């Protein structure tokens, strides 16, 4: 009964461990900004912990570097199950602006399986809160892939057999409509 009560009371209270594997500190500052009284993520039960062994969620900031990838993987393996990984910032989501450097292996998902992405460079504190709220089921995600497809050729194909008239006055019958 106490277990059930605890699960009900402490459900969805995520304890986060923040792992910077070679970012520029921008995302770190935004994450710490989330914990200030103004944004206050502690009302969702989110708490910053110092060790991956206490954490439910790892916030990855920065790309997987050559030197830090092994440490990032070890930190992930040290977390108890069930565990989530959030990639925060464009470095962790896609490799960052130095993605083609020899030292950068790529996004964080090359080393650890990433569950949620918060793109931005750095993401606003609200964006991080939004990502966490999506993960906690408080809000629905807003983004969806957008595809635009032109269905018809805007200008008709040229066919010499459609030319009418002779000499100076030649009219092309399939000319584009005026005002196009």
């Amino acid at each position: 009964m106490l277990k059930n009560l605890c699960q009900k009371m402490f459900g969805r209270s995520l304890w986060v461990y923040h792992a910077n594997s070679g970012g520029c500190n921008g995302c770190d500052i935004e994450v710490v900004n989330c914990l200030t009284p103004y944004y206050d993520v502690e009302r969702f039960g989110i708490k910053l912990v110092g060790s991956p062994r206490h954490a439910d969620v790892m916030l990855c900031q920065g790309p997987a570097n050559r030197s830090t990838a092994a440490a990032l993987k070890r930190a992930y393996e040290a977390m108890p199950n069930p565990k989530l990984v959030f990639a925060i910032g464009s470095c962790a989501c896609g490799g960052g602006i130095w993605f083609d450097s020899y030292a950068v292996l790529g996004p964080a998902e090359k080393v650890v399986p990433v569950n949620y992405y918060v793109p931005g460079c750095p993401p606003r504190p609200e964006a991080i809160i939004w990502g966490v709220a999506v993960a906690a089921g408080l809000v629905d995600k807003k983004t969806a892939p957008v595809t635009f497809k032109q269905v018809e050729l805007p200008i008709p194909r040229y066919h010499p057999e459609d030319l009418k008239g002779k000499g100076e006055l030649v009219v092309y019958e399939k000319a584009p409509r005026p005002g196009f």
Partner: protein
Amino acid sequence: MSILSKLLETQICLGAGRATMPYPFQPRTAPATFRGRPIFDGKKCIGCAGCANNCPAREILVFDPCQEIRVLKYLGRRCTYCGRCADLCPEKAITMSGEFENGTNAIGDISQTIELFMSTCQRCGRCFDEPSEGKRNPLEKLKMKGYRFDDLKNERWIFRSQAYLEGQPVVDDIAIDLKD
């Protein structure tokens, strides 16, 4: 004295009111100067691929499956929202929106795809040469040594260049011998 100061502190704290934002439950807009996710307007886009050539993160891919169709794909994984694509676009088809709530569980959600018919020459019926080896029109230059080639299927760009490898000539027809 100590109790008095505590009481005074309590009064100050109670008088300050509530500072925390009720953020995810009430919408909040970014300031007007904030640069968020770029929005691609397929109706205005002419398919010049200037954005793809200027993207520092190389997150806009271009691919021509045939002579008349061009596919532009914005992946946005490591986009830093620098706005260079929007500055460059001659038709102002890209606008930097104030969207920041991009947290998602699938990174493909922030991608945007535009599939365009390229207008063709009325005389010869083509706007550029067919993609093939050996030709050197501007599109083919993307595939030249030192230039990149977009692999839309795997959502990545690759250098066609092998020039940085040892023993590989920098240019096809000039073999540079470094040894005396």
